[in-house]
C-alpha cells in the first residue's frame, strides 16, 4: 500500500476563479488528460474546511500525490502545507485570471490557459516524490572559529553563550589580533566624543574563562574536509603536533592585513622613522605608557603631528587599493585625540581629501574632534620631506594653493586588505584554461596568491571564493556572512573593511548562521534560500560520463569527485539550486521534487494548437526567487500578460536543461523567454553563480536554433529583478509581438 501512488486533484473556485473559468471543464482536464484518480472542487480551498478535505483524503483514501489548482505556489503556503505527500500547484489566479481581461472575446483563450496549467501541474506531480532526506545527516554542535581577534573571539563568545561548544584556532601566540595592540578604540557609545577602552583584555579573559571555548594558539588548519555537520579539521601546531576534530560549522574570522606604504615613495615611509602607519602609531602610544607620545627617531615628545589620509586608497593606480577602507578618518580623529590627551598643546592636523565619518556617531565624533581644536584641512599631500623636522607638502584644496607644514611626526592612513586564502576560481582557472598560454597566465596569478587558510579538500579549491578585491564572497545586503561554501561563514574584515564595532556585530551574525547551519545539517535540511528543503541531488551512475561539468559548475563547490571522477554530492553542502542538473549533458542528475522530467513533462503537456489556429505558445522559464514573484506582483497590480504564455518556475536559471529548450522548440513552441537574476559582481542571484552559469549555457542555444532552421529571436534570456513588476510582463508580451512579426513555428505536429 505504501508504495502505491494515488493522485488527487483539487480545484479552488474562490477568488473569482469559479466566475472566470469553467471549473467543470478543468476537472475533466485533470481527470481525463491529467489522469488524476479523483478531483474535487472547493469554493475556498485554503479555508479550514478546504484544507481538511485534502487532509482527510490523505488520511483515509491513501492519496500520495496532490495537484492543487488555485493561486500561485507562493501564496497560501501555510495552508497548503502537506509534508507527507508530493504536491504541485496550478496557478489559476495570479497566472491566469488576474493577468487576462474579463471580456467575452478573451474567455476562450483564458480557459485554454487554465486548462494548460492544470495539465502542467498534473504532469509535474506525477514525476515528483515527497523528499525524505538522505539519512546522511548528523548533528554536530561543535563550531570552529578560525582567528582569535575581536571578530573570532566575539563569534566564539556568542556561540558559546547559545550553548554550542567552540574551538578557536589562532595562528599567533596570543589572542586579541590587531585590536590587542591598540591604545583605545573609536567610541561606540553616546556622546561619541572620546576614544574608549578597546575592551580587548576583558574579552580575552572572558574567552579564557569560558568552559565551552577551547583555544588553540600557534595553530593553523592543515586540512579540512567534509560538509556541514561533519567537517573534520586537522589542527596543526607550530611544534608539529596535530589533532583532528569534528565540527558542525566553521566561521572564518581571519581579519585583515595593512597596505604597505613602501610602495609609495612620496610619503618617505622608508626614509624616515618618524613617518608611521596608523597602526604603528598605536604601538608608539602603547610604548608611551600614559606619558607623552614620542617620535621614533630621537624620542622627542611630539609637539606637532600631521595625519595624511587616504594613502594608496580609492585609487586607479597600479599597486594601490581600488577601494577605500572607510574607517581611516575615524581612526585619525581618534588618534589625534590621543595627542590632545597625552601631549599637551600638541598641534594636530588631519589632511584629508574627503572626510568619511559615517552615521550620527561619526558626525558627533568629527564635531568632538573640532571642539578639541584638531585642525581639519582639505588637502592632497604631494610629498613628505624627511629631516629632523618633517616637511609635509600639500595642495590646499579649499584655498587652491600649494602649502607646506612642519611637524614632528607623520601618520599615514593606510587601507585594510583582506586576509583570505587563494581564490578557488583562480585555482579552477588553471584547470579550465583552453590553451597553454592561458594556463600559464592563470598559473602565474595563482603563484602570487596567499597561502591557504582552510586547506579545504574540495573539488573546486582550498578556500572561500573571492568576490571583489580579494574579499570573500558575500552579498552584503541579502546574505551577509554567507559564502559559497555552505556551513562556512566569513565575518569581520576578511569580508569587507570595517571597524571593531562592526566586526563584533558581524561576528554575532555569523555565529547565528553557523549554529543554524549545524542544526540544518543535523536534520538534512537545506540552508538558505531553499531553507528546509529535504531533497538532494542524486544521479544515475550508469549514465554518467564523468565529464565533470557538475563538479566544476556547482556554485557552492559542494560536489567532490571520487577516484573514478564520478561526482560525490555532499548533500549538506548542497543548496538545491539544481545548477548541476542543468549542467549535466546526459541528464542523469535529479532531485526527488525537481528534475528534468518534472519540468520537461510540464512543457510536453501544454496543448500546442495547429499552426492555422494562429494560437502561438510562449514558454517562460522564470526563476522562483525573483522573476516569478515579480510576475505574481504584476498580476496583483493587474498588468496583462499575453494569453499565449505558459510560465514554469525554475529553481534557478542555472538549473535549466538545454533539453527543455530543444524539446519545446521541437514541440512547436513559438518563443521561449528565460528569466534569471542579475549576474556578475553586483549579482542578485540567490545561488550567486547559478544565473551566470545558466545564461552562459543559454548563449549556446543559437546552435540549436540554427540546426532547426529557426529564427534566433525565438529564444530570449533576461536578467530580471524582483522589482521588475512592469518590465517582467512586458518582456513576455514583447515575445508575443516578436512571434507575431516573424510568424508561427513550423514545428507543430
Amino acid at each position, binding site marked *: 500500500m505504501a508504495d502505491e501512488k494515488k493522485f488527487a486533484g483539487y480545484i479552488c473556485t474562490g477568488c473569482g476563479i469559479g466566475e472566470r473559468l469553467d471549473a467543470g471543464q478543468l476537472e475533466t482536464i485533470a481527470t481525463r488528460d491529467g489522469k488524476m484518480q479523483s478531483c474535487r472542487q472547493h469554493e475556498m480551498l485554503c479555508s479550514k474546511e478546504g484544507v481538511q478535505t485534502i487532509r482527510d483524503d490523505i488520511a483515509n483514501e491513501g492519496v500520495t500525490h496532490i495537484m492543487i489548482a488555485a493561486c500561485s505556489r507562493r501564496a497560501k503556503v501555510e495552508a497548503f502545507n502537506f509534508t507527507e505527500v508530493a504536491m504541485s500547484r496550478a496557478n489559476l489566479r495570479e497566472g491566469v485570471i488576474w493577468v487576462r481581461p474579463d471580456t467575452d472575446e478573451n474567455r476562450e483563450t483564458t480557459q485554454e490557459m487554465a486548462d494548460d496549467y492544470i495539465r502542467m501541474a498534473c504532469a509535474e506531480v506525477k514525476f515528483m516524490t515527497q523528499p525524505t532526506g538522505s539519512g546522511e545527516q548528523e548533528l554536530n554542535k561543535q563550531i570552529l572559529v578560525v582567528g582569535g581577534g575581536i571578530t573570532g573571539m566575539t563569534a566564539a563568545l556568542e556561540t558559546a553563550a547559545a550553548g554550542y561548544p567552540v574551538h578557536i584556532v589562532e595562528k599567533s601566540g596570543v589572542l586579541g589580533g590587531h585590536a590587542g595592540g591598540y591604545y583605545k578604540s573609536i567610541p561606540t557609545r553616546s556622546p561619541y566624543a572620546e576614544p574608549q577602552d578597546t575592551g580587548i583584555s576583558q574579552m580575552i579573559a572572558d574567552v579564557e574563562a569560558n568552559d565551552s571555548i577551547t583555544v588553540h594558539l600557534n595553530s593553523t588548519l592543515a586540512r579540512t574536509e567534509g560538509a556541514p555537520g561533519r567537517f573534520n579539521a586537522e589542527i596543526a601546531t607550530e611544534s608539529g603536533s596535530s589533532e583532528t576534530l569534528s565540527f558542525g560549522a566553521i566561521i572564518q574570522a581571519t581579519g585583515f592585513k595593512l597596505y604597505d606604504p613602501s610602495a609609495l615613495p612620496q610619503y618617505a615611509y622608508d626614509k624616515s622613522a618618524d613617518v608611521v602607519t596608523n597602526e604603528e602609531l598605536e604601538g608608539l602610544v602603547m610604548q608611551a605608557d600614559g606619558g607623552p607620545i614620542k617620535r621614533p627617531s630621537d624620542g622627542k615628545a611630539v609637539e606637532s603631528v600631521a595625519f595624511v589620509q587616504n594613502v594608496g586608497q580609492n585609487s586607479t593606480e597600479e599597486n594601490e587599493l581600488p577601494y577605500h577602507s572607510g574607517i581611516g578618518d575615524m581612526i585619525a580623529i581618534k588618534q589625534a585625540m590621543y595627542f590632545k590627551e597625552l601631549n599637551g598643546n600638541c*598641534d594636530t592636523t588631519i589632511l584629508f581629501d574627503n*572626510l568619511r565619518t559615517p552615521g550620527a556617531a561619526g558626525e558627533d565624533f*568629527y*564635531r568632538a574632534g*573640532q*571642539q578639541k*581644536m584638531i*585642525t*581639519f*584641512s*582639505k588637502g592632497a599631500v604631494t610629498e613628505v620631506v624627511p629631516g629632523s623636522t618633517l616637511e609635509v607638502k600639500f595642495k*590646499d584644496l*579649499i*584655498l587652491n594653493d600649494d*602649502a607646506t607644514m612642519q611637524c614632528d611626526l607623520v601618520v599615514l592612513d593606510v587601507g585594510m586588505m583582506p586576509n583570505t586564502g587563494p581564490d578557488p576560481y583562480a585555482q579552477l582557472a588553471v584547470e579550465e584554461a583552453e590553451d597553454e598560454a592561458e594556463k600559464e597566465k592563470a598559473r602565474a596569478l595563482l603563484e602570487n596568491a596567499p597561502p591557504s587558510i582552510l586547506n579545504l579538500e574540495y573539488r573546486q579549491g582550498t578556500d572561500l571564493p573571492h568576490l571583489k578585491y580579494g574579499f570573500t564572497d558575500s552579498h552584503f545586503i541579502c546574505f551577509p556572512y554567507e559564502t559559497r561554501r555552505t556551513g562556512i561563514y566569513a565575518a569581520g574584515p576578511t569580508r569587507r573593511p570595517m571597524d571593531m564595532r562592526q566586526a563584533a556585530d558581524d561576528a554575532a551574525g555569523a555565529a547565528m548562521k553557523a549554529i543554524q547551519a549545524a542544526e540544518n545539517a543535523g536534520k538534512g535540511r537545506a540552508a538558505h534560500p531553499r531553507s528546509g528543503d529535504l531533497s538532494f541531488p542524486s544521479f544515475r551512475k550508469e549514465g554518467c560520463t564523468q565529464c565533470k561539468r557538475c563538479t566544476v559548475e556547482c556554485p557552492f563547490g559542494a560536489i567532490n569527485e571520487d577516484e573514478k571522477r564520478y561526482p560525490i554530492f555532499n548533500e549538506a553542502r548542497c543548496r538545491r539550486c539544481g545548477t548541476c542538473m542543468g549542467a549535466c549533458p546526459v541528464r542523469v542528475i535529479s532531485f526527488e521534487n525537481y528534475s528534468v522530467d518534472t519540468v520537461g513533462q510540464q512543457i510536453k503537456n501544454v496543448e500546442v494548437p495547429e499552426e492555422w489556429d494562429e494560437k502561438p505558445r510562449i514558454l517562460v522559464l522564470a526563476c522562483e526567487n525573483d522573476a516569478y514573484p515579480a510576475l505574481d506582483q504584476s498580476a496583483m497590480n493587474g498588468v496583462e500578460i499575453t494569453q499565449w504564455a505558459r510560465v514554469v518556475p525554475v529553481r534557478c536559471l542555472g538549473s535549466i536543461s538545454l533539453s527543455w529548450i530543444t524539446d519545446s522548440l521541437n514541440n512547436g513552441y513559438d518563443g521561449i523567454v528565460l528569466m534569471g537574476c542579475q549576474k556578475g559582481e553586483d549579482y542578485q542571484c540567490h545561488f550567486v553563480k547559478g544565473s551566470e552559469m545558466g545564461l552562459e549555457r543559454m548563449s549556446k542555444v543559437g546552435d540549436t536554433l540554427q540546426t532547426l532552421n529557426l529564427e534566433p529571436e525565438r529564444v530570449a534570456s533576461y536578467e530580471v529583478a524582483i522589482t521588475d513588476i512592469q518590465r517582467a510582463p512586458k518582456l513576455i508580451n514583447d515575445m508575443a509581438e516578436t512571434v507575431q512579426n516573424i510568424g508561427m513555428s513550423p514545428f507543430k505536429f
Partner: protein
Amino acid sequence: MTELNTAMIEQYRNSFLQEVEANVEEGEWVKMCMQCGVCAGSCPLGNAWEHPPQEIFMMIRAGKREAVLSSDSMWMCTSCYNCISRCPRGLPITHIMHGLAHYAQRLGLVPKNQPTQRFAQMFWQNLNKKGRVNELKLGLSLYFMNGFGEGVKTSLKMKDIGLGMLKTKRMAVTEAFGGHGVKDLSGFQKIMKKAHELEDARIQKSGN
C-alpha cells in the same frame, strides 16, 4: 600697524584660530566648519568674494592672519542671512563675517577706501551722534566722502532719487538742521561710552 595689532600678533603667535576665538564675535564657531561650501553657494554676492566664508574659515585655521584680516571679502556681506539658514553645521556665518570685519577695523587692517567699511563707520557715527539715524546727513556725508568735487558729481547723479524722495515726503530738508534724535542724549551717550570701554577692556585683556 596699530599697537593693538602688534600686541595680538605677540599674544597669538601660534594660533590665529585662538585669536579669533577670543576676540571675534561668535569666533568660537570657526573650528566647527566642515568645508561643505553651502555658504559660498548661497551668498547672493558670492562672485564678489575673493574668499568665500568657508575659505576664510580654512585660512583662519591655516594661520593666514594677514590675508584674512586685510581681506575685502567680509565687507561684501549683505546681511541676508542665507548662509546662516542653510549651514548644515549651524554656524552663525553672517555674524562671524561681521565680527571679523569689525576686528580687522579695530586693528586697522581694512584695505584703504573700502567703501562699505567707510559707509558702516559713517552710519555708526551718525546714529551715535543723536541716538537715531539722520538719513539726509548720512546720504550727504556719503556723497561727499571722497571730497567736494566727487560729492557734487555723485549728488547730481543721485539728484533724481533725492527729488523723488523729497516730493513723496520720504526725505525732509529740515533734517539738515538738527532733526530727529533721542531726548535723553546725555544718558544715551553715557551708556554707549561705557559699553565701548567694557568691550575695549575685554580685548585688551586678551592681548596681555
